[in-house]
Structures are given as structure tokens and as C-alpha cells.
């Protein structure tokens, strides 16, 4: 046992040494690669951000150090104090979501609440929630789904609506595809991205069956005034150009016990959120009393996002 531990420590040291070696080797190259528009950032910051470790490999102290540096970086960029949380997953929690298709009216309030809460780029536009409109009788006939409907009033007669966002799969196709482990599933079931580790290959986007992953094709454009300053490292902190982002069940809120922004914004109360391991939670109620289904469940991704229709399943007529 002791041997094993020692070996582990040795390995750690080796790792550090190798990394240092790489740093040395790339020192010259990196100086020449220093982009001009980052001239205001000190070289040390650039150096540290270039060699920043993967989030899961950092100790808490290292995470705090990185967060501090990033906060300064953001402050320089947006002229606004932005705090980055690193709250870990709560034990005994597995987040789940319920969406009542009978209630959704397709008003896109959730879309914009999400954009504001999660600091999505306004220009070029990125939206984590996509609301699809189906004709009655065409549920999940994707070819007939309409994302760009724009009537004067919703709901429109003859149609119903289905918001699609990250389904937080238990068996995610995207994390499997990522070649650098920059995206992974947290213990509370949220699939997250380390925006400082993602290389922007977009293989996860090719793998995702729900179109839930979005790429920063250009420099994310948000006015400093629009920035939500309460952020999480794995969630809504401002992103970089050339990395992938996605819905994180508002990790900055839910890890502190709060509801997600979309749940609180929905004007018809169609959105339910809670702990799947808690039998008294709202999501569990929906699962046990409603006719729930999961999107493209046949792909074996096991989403933790449950759609349902609002009537009792069986109970009402059981006597």
C-alpha cells in the first residue's frame, strides 16, 4: 500500500518535471506567438494561462489562484468585477429536469433569461435553448420542426412547442468524443466544459444528438453592462473565441441550491428542476405521476431531461 502511494507521488513529480520541461521547450516559441492584442496582459499572465492545468487536475489552492488571475483578466477586459465560483458538486445530488409539453407556449422567455444569466454572446448570437415548433401530429418529426417561427402571438392554434437544450445525459456522447477530456460529467450529473482546456475541434458538436453544444465562432460580444457578474468556472463565466459552450443547468445557481434561470423565468410554469435522488423532488413527482419520455432515448444517451404531458398517468382511474 505504502509502495503504491510512493509511486503515485513519484508519478506526480515526474509529471511536474515533464511539464516544466515542456514549458522550457516551448518558452521561445511562446514568446513569438504572443498575440499583439494581449499586449496589455502581462507576459506572466499569458504564460500562466497558456500552461494552465486541466480543472480536474488542479488542487483547490491552484484553482483559487487561477480564478484570481481570471477575475483580473475579466476585469481588465470588461471593466467590471466578476466573481468566479468553484463550488464542487453537493453529495447525494443528481440533477434532473422536467418539461411540461402541454403547458409550453413557445414564448422564448426561457431562451432570453438563459442568455442573460449565462453571459451568452449576443453578437454573434448564441442561444443554449432552442424552441422548436411542431404541427399537431408531428411531434419529433424533426424535418418539420420550425425553429424560426415568429408570429405576433403565441401559442398559435394547431401548433405546440418543444424547447431543446442540453439533456445532461448520463451516458453523454459528447464527453466520450472529446479528444482532450475538456468536457466531462460532474458527480451531480452536469456535463461541463473547461473553457481553458477546450481546443475547439468541435467533435463533441458532431457527436451531440440534441444540437446542444454551441461554438464561439467569433469573439463573444456582450456589453459589460449586460454581464452577469456572479459566475462559476465551469458555467457562465465569459467565454473565449474558439471554444465550445453549453447549458450547465445554471451550475452557478444550482450548486448553491437555487433554481435555474429558465425555471424561474417560464411564465407558464412548464419547467421543473430538482434532485433525482430525492423522492420528494418536483422532477421525481413528474417522473412518477406523468407520462414522461426522453428525447432520442433510443440512442442510449440516458438524458436526465424529462419531457412530459400534463395529466395523471393511470392514478386517476385506478379507483
Amino acid at each position, binding site marked *: 500500500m505504502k509502495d503504491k502511494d510512493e509511486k503515485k507521488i513519484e508519478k506526480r513529480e515526474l509529471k511536474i518535471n515533464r511539464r516544466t520541461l515542456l514549458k522550457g521547450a516551448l518558452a521561445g516559441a511562446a514568446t513569438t506567438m504572443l498575440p499583439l492584442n494581449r499586449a496589455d496582459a502581462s507576459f506572466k499572465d499569458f504564460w500562466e494561462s497558456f500552461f494552465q492545468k486541466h480543472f480536474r487536475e488542479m488542487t483547490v489552492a491552484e484553482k483559487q489562484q487561477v480564478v484570481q488571475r481570471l477575475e483580473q483578466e475579466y476585469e481588465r477586459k470588461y471593466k467590471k468585477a466578476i466573481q468566479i465560483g468553484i463550488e464542487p458538486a453537493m453529495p447525494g445530488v443528481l440533477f434532473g429536469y422536467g418539461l411540461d409539453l402541454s403547458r409550453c407556449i413557445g414564448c422564448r422567455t426561457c431562451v432570453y433569461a438563459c442568455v442573460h444569466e449565462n453571459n451568452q454572446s449576443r453578437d454573434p448570437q448564441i442561444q443554449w435553448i432552442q424552441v422548436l415548433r411542431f404541427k399537431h401530429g408531428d411531434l419529433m418529426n424533426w*424535418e418539420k420542426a420550425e425553429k424560426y417561427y415568429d408570429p405576433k402571438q403565441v401559442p398559435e392554434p394547431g401548433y405546440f412547442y418543444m424547447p431543446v437544450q442540453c439533456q445532461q445525459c448520463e451516458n453523454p456522447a459528447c464527453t466520450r468524443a472529446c479528444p482532450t477530456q475538456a468536457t466531462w460529467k460532474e458527480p451531480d450529473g452536469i456535463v461541463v466544459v473547461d473553457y481553458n482546456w477546450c481546443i475547439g*475541434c468541435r*467533435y463533441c458538436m458532431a457527436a451531440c444528438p440534441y*444540437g446542444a453544444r454551441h*461554438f464561439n*465562432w467569433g469573439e463573444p460580444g456582450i456589453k459589460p453592462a449586460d454581464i452577469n457578474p456572479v459566475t462559476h468556472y465551469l458555467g457562465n463565466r465569459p467565454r473565449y473565441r*474558439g471554444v465550445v459552450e453549453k447549458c450547465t443547468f445554471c451550475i452557478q445557481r444550482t450548486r448553491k441550491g437555487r433554481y435555474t434561470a429558465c425555471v424561474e423565468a417560464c411564465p407558464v410554469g412548464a419547467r421543473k428542476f430538482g434532485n433525482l435522488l430525492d423522492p420528494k423532488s418536483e422532477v421525481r413527482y413528474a417522473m412518477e405521476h406523468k407520462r414522461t419520455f426522453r428525447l432520442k432515448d433510443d440512442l442510449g444517451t440516458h438524458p436526465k431531461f424529462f419531457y412530459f404531458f400534463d395529466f395523471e398517468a393511470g392514478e386517476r382511474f385506478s379507483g
Partner: protein
Amino acid sequence: MIQTIKNFIIAWGSIFKGSAKYYLWLAFLAGLMAVGVHAYIGQAEHGLIMTAMRDQVSWGFYISNFTFLVGVAAAAVLLVVPSYVHHDKPIKEIVIFAEMMAITALLMCIMFIMTDLGQPLRVWHILPPPIGLMHWPSSLLAWDVLALNSYLFLNIIVVFYVLYKLSRGEHYKMKSFVGFLIYLSIPVAVSIHTVTAFLYNAGFSRPFWGDAILAPKFIAGALSSGPALMLLVFQVLRKVTDVKIEDKTLFRIATFITYALAIDLFFIGSEVFVSFYPGTAESASIHYLFFGLHGQTNLVPYIWTSVIATVVAFVLILNKGTREKFVTLNTACVLMIVGIYLEKGMGLVIPGFTPDVLGEIYQYTPTATELMVSLGVWAFGAMVYTLLVKFALPVYTGKLRFASSGKEDIHEVKVVRPHVEEVPEEQA
């Protein structure tokens, strides 16, 4: 060791000596590369928004080119097998040029991947654990990185070792370590294209990529379009250099291509049938590709050009009369390259994303930036290949020989094709 390095530098010097035409060609390529670099600087400054790729179609022209070039790289195996396994002498004499093409194609693959990355400076994250966090064996992209780099290094070692031996008037042995590497390069060549096909297969949310025949089809396509490219290059080589390549050898390669293309067409046909006949929702992509969907038809011209080009090429190359006539043979080769380039590139990548997973159709057409960057990469490839050939030629033709002893002694030999003559243990 120092002697070897010195000799290497001397041989390296030969790439700077050339005719005016040679320099003109290099300048032309450098010009094209400058166009590419210019476009890439624009892309680096503004991001990939300069391309036509968007969330709906998240891979485009770069990855299409990458996929085709993996095939070109793998195609060297069509000459490696007859020359090293069957000791087919005329092919063995030119196999080194095929291996150089593999090196070139792989370098181009790497460049296409780099241009496609959103954060190219972070590419080291993909290295195995002590440095990066390679997601192996889960991610097929990690497999691809491994396979492509192994194949690249194998080919570099083999080519330079053969040249090194040649430069000393020696022969390499197949029973040596390098012999082992040569044999190893055969399965690795197959693996690079298989892994690339699996890369698409693994995207199970996109049914268009989900057929088991993709890898075999990739290889069949590679073994026809790759050698077709080589046939054209070999004809240029024997025209502008001292390299002697007999017509007979070229026609032999043309025969190989015929088989490969026949198999490729058969695979394409099987795939099209299976995708079309059931008419399920999963046929949407292939409908979009061949006939357009909901009035969106921008891929239709590509695929029909490809179909017509490939079929005409097949007819031309199948017929012995047209196969053994250079005008028609070259036409067939060009048509084949165009056909397979369109089918395996744009015709594979884009329909996978159209309609996207939520049924949206975004019509992807590469932007000027993408075209110019790609042009630059192709020019870079041509440049690399030219320089590699130029570097190898004096050694290959026997004009440059170094003494096997440690002496600094360069003597020119007038033998034109000295290597692979009298290699007793290989014949055995």
C-alpha cells in the same frame, strides 16, 4: 554521426540548386501559400466566423480536405505491398516517391486540422497524459492523432533510412528493424483510414455516417484516388527529372486502380441503396445530397459531378485500349480524383450535418477564406513534395554518393538506377 549530419547538409544543399523553371515553380507555390497565410491571418484575427461553418454545420471544407488527404496518405500502401511483400521490382523502384507522397499528405492533414481548430495554440492538450490529457481510448479523434502520427513517423523513418543507405551505396535489409517498420506501415496505413472512417461512424447521432461500410469504402476510394494522383505525379517526375519510370509500371498501377475503383463503386452503390430504399427519416441526408430537400439543393451539383466523373473514369480505365493510352488514362485519373474528392469530402461531411440533429437545414458553401486557406495548404503540400523529391533525387539517381567509410569523400557515380539491384536476401 557528425559525418552523417554533414552529408545530410550536403544533400540538403541540392534543393537550392535548380533550373529557372524549378525556381519559378517554387515561387508560384510560395505565392499561393502567401494567399493562404493571408487568409489564415484573417481567420486567426476574427475567428472561425470567417468560414461558413456554424453550429448547424460545424465541420466543413477543412475536414473534407482532411478526409480526402488521409486517403491519399493511406494509398501509398498500394505500392508498398507489391514492392516489399511481393518484391515487384519496377514498383519497388518508385515506391519511395509514394512514401514521400504519404508524408506530404499527412503534413497537409495536420495543417487542415490545425486550421480547423478554434484554439490551435492549445493543441498540446491532445498529447498523452504526462503533458496533455489525451482521451484515449474513448475518443476516436485521439485514435486518429495516434494513427496519423505513427504513420507519419514510420514513413519519415523509412524514406530517410532508405535514402541514407542509398547515399552510401548500401542496401537495406528487410529483416532489419527498418524492414519491420516497413511491414508495420502496411497495417498502420489501413488503420489511418479506418480510424478516420470510425471517427464519423462514432457520431451515432448522425445516421448518414452510421453505415458499417464506411471504412471499407474509404479504403477503396483511397486506393483508387491516391494512386491516380501518383500516376499523374510520376509522369511529371519522369518528364522533368532523370527518374526513369517505364510505361509498363504505370499501366500496372492503372490495373490496381481499376480493381480499387470497381470495389469503391460497388461500395458506394450498396451504401446508396441501403440509405435510399427504406425511405425512413434517416434517408433525409442522402436525399439532400442527391436531390435536395425542401428546395435546398446546394450539394446536388457536387455529387452528380462526382458520380458522372467517377463513372466516366471507370469506363475509361476499365477498357484496356483507353487505359494504356496516356491521354485517356490521365483523363480518367483526373476525373477519378475529382469524383472521389467531392464524394469523400463535401459529399460525406456536409450531408452528415444536413439536416442537423434537430432537422434544420443550413446550406453550407465554403467562404473565400476557407478556399484560400485550403489552396494555401495544397500549395504547401506541393512545395513539400517538390522539395522532398529534389532532396532525394541526387541520391536516388546515384549522382550523389558518400563513402561508407568515415571519410569525407563525395564522388559522383554515373549509374542511373543503382538501388534494388542484387538484393539476394530479399529475393529469397
